């Protein structure tokens, strides 16, 4: 069973990023759950969600010991770095990280300039999608094509297929960055 936490400011697309990854997991044939943090989360505040997926039923959808945390900004890094399971990964948005990081030696820290990469592919709102590409490569639970197809499938069903080329470019940029 995989556990991922997606964290950032409201508006950075972390809840969507988590949803896309959970949909890719379904597309691949896994079971999946997506659970948002509830309570003090508001626009401009911090937002996070927990995604779990695997072969069997997902009994506990809550936040426990994530294999991977996506930290899209410094407060999210500080809040979640100690939650990562030993041997796990924290994936950091290097463009929004104002501190040095490397808070733990027993986890792997991967930095990606996802805002810069999103700008480069002319999809400045796609920093979250860049990170989905990176996560796909890092975890290896889905192939590149499964990731792209699962993502496109979801946005098509939401009637947002006009952004498909831009999203694929952002995904690709993240996939190649790690």
């Amino acid at each position, binding site marked *: 069973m995989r556990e991922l936490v997606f964290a950032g400011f409201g508006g950075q697309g972390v809840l969507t990023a988590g949803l896309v990854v959970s949909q890719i997991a*379904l597309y691949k044939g896994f079971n*999946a*759950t997506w659970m948002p943090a509830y*309570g003090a989360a508001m626009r401009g505040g911090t937002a996070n969600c927990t995604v779990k997926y695997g072969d069997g039923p997902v009994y*506990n*959808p809550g936040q426990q010991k994530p294999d991977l945390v996506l930290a899209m900004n410094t407060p999210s890094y500080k809040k979640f770095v100690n939650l990562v399971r030993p041997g796990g990964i924290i994936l950091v948005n290097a463009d929004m990280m104002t501190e040095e990081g490397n808070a733990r030696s027993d986890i792997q820290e991967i930095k990606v300039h996802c805002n810069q990469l999103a700008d480069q592919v002319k999809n400045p709102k796609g920093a979250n999608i860049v990170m989905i590409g990176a996560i796909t490569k890092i975890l290896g639970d889905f192939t590149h094509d499964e990731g792209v197809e699962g993502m496109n499938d979801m946005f098509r069903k939401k009637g947002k297929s006009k952004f498909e080329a831009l999203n694929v470019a952002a995904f690709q940029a993240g996939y190649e960055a790690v």
Partner: protein
Amino acid sequence: MGDMVKGNIAVAEAAVRAGIIVYAGYPITPSTEVMEYLSTRMEDLGREFIQAESELAAINMVMGVSACGKRVLTASSGPGISLKQEGISYMAQMEYPAVILNVVRWGNGLGSLDGSQTDYHRETRGGGNGDYRNIILCPSTVQESVDLMYEAFDIAEKYRCIVEVMTDSGLGQMMEPCEYPEFRELTKCDWGLDGTYKVKRGDFLGRNIPGESETYMKKVRAMRENEQRWEMYGEEDAEYIFVAYGMPGRVMSGLVRTMRQQGEKVGILRPITVWPFPEKAFEEMKEKNPNLKGFITVETNGEGQMVDDVALYAKKYGMGTLPVYALPYVCGVPKDDVVAADFAKVKAGEIKEVY
């Protein structure tokens, strides 16, 4: 397998497919997505959606639709359901069926937004004034929320009672894949009002109250006999049986499986109805398992509420000498490692039984 769907949306769509002709409600977090979704969905289908001026107005609109023998839904959370109790009690008296969704949030008064099981006592005892019970269905997954909501209307009409689907913030807000059932045709119960005057006016002072009470009690007994639902696992050889419903129910269904692989002699009873409480499961356990050492409820409230019912039914079925523990985690989703550590404390005698 279907796509990821939010619990609140899924349950609303299930009610649509079960054939609600009206939704009337007043918004409250964490149930608001139900209204948001139905505000367009009902209109698209040519049905009625009403955002009432208050919870009180909403439940009276529900009463009106029900009086006409049509299917109707309202949804709210703890504080809003409190306001609806007058209407609920009146509907119980008049035998008007309806389905109510309670997306429970923690607390007294205004409470908080956290998912919780603080409404257990109120919901299982009827809620308003009087001597009635509602059937309380407690799903633990999004798919089960859909299935139970769909069936809730049939049960409500069968007994002419209120059926409440009780979820919580967690189950309402989370997403999981689910499949929807087929659309039902819109129906009308044959007793529903239709504008013709056919019911003789009652005599308020000349009633036979013991006889009237017996008609309700007969119904309560039938519901208790026929509608208990539960899921059990590991009960035949367990020393400790966990009892948990809703979100803690699914957590414990998984953790018990993990713990058994590690050699722990544990089992789980997951009530799907909390009223009627699945007492037949206790009868089964008593018959099957002579080695039981105790019951442990896992709940998201302050000190355990369901623990009272577990103790009562353990006693009723000859297991009254067994200790009954509560592991209450107040709100949110219980964590596997925390529950496992607390279970070790129970076994070591560091956590005392409630009963």
